[in-house]
């Protein structure tokens, strides 16, 4: 077993009283002094600061942006050639069976493409890109930390330190000179709130974090609340809600596949698993990811089997993420069910500790997104 890696903010987390846990090979804060519930609520009402430095930051450099984007389009079913400079898009690496290898953010930064990938997948992703992006240089950025500042106060707080960020729209990216070195900022995040992700030189990261935390509105937030925030926002966690066995159409992520990559589009297909994914885009998938609202207060957690009837029968699906939603003030889950059960309001039964409890299919997200479009 290899030693856990530490992010440039690990010492700061410990100073702030974080409870540290192993996550994707890193020692990460699961919660700070406030605790998961208050950290979650604080992010929705003011602003939360998250350390997401464990995620992979990758630069793909071809002869120019378009060359890198064209090469990358062979791995992701996303319109990258049509992505404007200074803009970012969500997407996923697919496999030959149409499953998802990882999900990621990709940005057009003028002369190159910048990607942010999941911590647990980053070594595989980088090897995958190096193996398939002919003529491109794939560089993992290891001398930068990544912070996320999320919540309705994020704009005001960051603008005071980095003038200009208030003018960004959701999914804009930009490079800003600052007292903390060159910052690579996107107006995005994974909580359903407005906010920013900030790539900062590793040796400036703690100073930037302390400057952000100095604002009354900002509290440090751990992985526990990050998980409940993204779940309420209906966002997928890789390895749980999506994986190599789920297709983008089953996962209800078809919105991320632009027309130009679909059947009849100018650059139709040309990515791993295209045959299955293009067919499902037209004909539908046999199962779907849905929101689930358990009745009562008992959370239905990952792995909970779902049944059509209160008694008897085999499971029709299962929960892939589930927790108590602090903002919803009720348990919320996501899971996969056959298409015929994937209709909002459908009554199902989740088996918790040997007892079937009623749960209804619900629309996602559980809380409305508050992005600055």
């Amino acid at each position: 077993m290899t030693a856990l890696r530490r992010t440039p903010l690990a010492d700061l987390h410990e100073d702030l009283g974080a409870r540290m846990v192993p996550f994707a090979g890193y020692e990460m804060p699961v919660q700070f002094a406030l605790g998961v519930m208050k950290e979650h609520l604080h992010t929705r009402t003011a602003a939360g600061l998250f350390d997401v430095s464990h995620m992979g930051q990758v630069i793909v450099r071809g002869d120019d942006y378009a060359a890198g984007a064209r090469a990358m389009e062979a791995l992701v079913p996303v319109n990258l050639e049509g992505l404007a400079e200074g803009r970012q898009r969500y997407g996923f690496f697919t496999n030959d069976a149409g499953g998802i290898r990882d999900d990621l953010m990709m940005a057009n930064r003028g002369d190159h493409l910048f990607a942010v990938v999941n911590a647990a997948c980053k070594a595989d992703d980088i090897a995958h890109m190096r193996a398939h992006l002919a003529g491109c240089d794939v560089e993992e950025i290891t001398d930068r930390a990544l912070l996320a500042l999320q919540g309705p106060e994020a704009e005001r707080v960051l603008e005071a330190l980095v003038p200009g960020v208030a003018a960004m729209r959701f999914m804009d990216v930009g490079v800003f000179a600052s007292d903390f070195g060159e910052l690579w900022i996107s107006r995005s995040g994974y909580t359903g709130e407005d906010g920013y992700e900030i790539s900062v030189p590793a040796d400036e990261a703690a100073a930037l974090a302390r400057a952000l935390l100095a604002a009354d509105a900002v509290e440090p937030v751990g992985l526990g609340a990050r998980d409940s925030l993204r779940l309420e926002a209906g966002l997928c966690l890789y390895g749980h809600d999506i994986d190599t066995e789920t297709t983008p159409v089953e996962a209800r992520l078809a919105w991320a596949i632009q027309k130009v990559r679909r059947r009849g589009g100018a650059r139709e297909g040309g990515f791993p698993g295209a045959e299955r994914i293009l067919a499902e885009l037209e004909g539908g998938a046999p199962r779907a990811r849905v929101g689930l609202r358990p009745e009562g207060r008992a959370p239905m957690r990952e792995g909970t089997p779902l049944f059509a009837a209160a008694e008897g029968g085999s499971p029709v699906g299962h929960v892939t993420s589930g927790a108590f939603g602090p903002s919803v003030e009720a348990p919320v889950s996501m899971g996969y069910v056959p298409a015929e059960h994937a209709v909002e309001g459908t009554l199902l039964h989740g088996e918790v500790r040997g007892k079937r409890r009623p749960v209804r299919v619900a629309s996602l997200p559980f809380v409305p997104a508050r992005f600055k479009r």
Partner: protein
Amino acid sequence: MKYTEEHEWLRPEDDGTVVVGITQHASEQLGDVVFVELPEAGTNVAKDDEIVVIESVKAASDILAPLDGEITEVNEALVDDPAKVNEDPLGDAWFFKMKPGDPSQMDDYMDEAAYKEFVG
């Protein structure tokens, strides 16, 4: 007051019943409690039966019956307001009262000094 290695506290009452809750240490380790499922009053239980389910923001855990006996009363207020377990674990947030079959089972448990040493 007695304490178990499962981080429960047991407080004998004058009427011979024993009130059971979880310690401050346990409530801090659990994190924010969001769901509590209690047994029914009148249930006969054996020591180490799983009789209460607590779900926190992190995970589900059980509370074991610390003694053989009969559950005489449960704290229904926790079902509606599970956060009480974090706010006042040693007071308002007791879980159940039980009438022990063999009160001498209490002797196996730690006193406050021993428990303090146990949690370090």
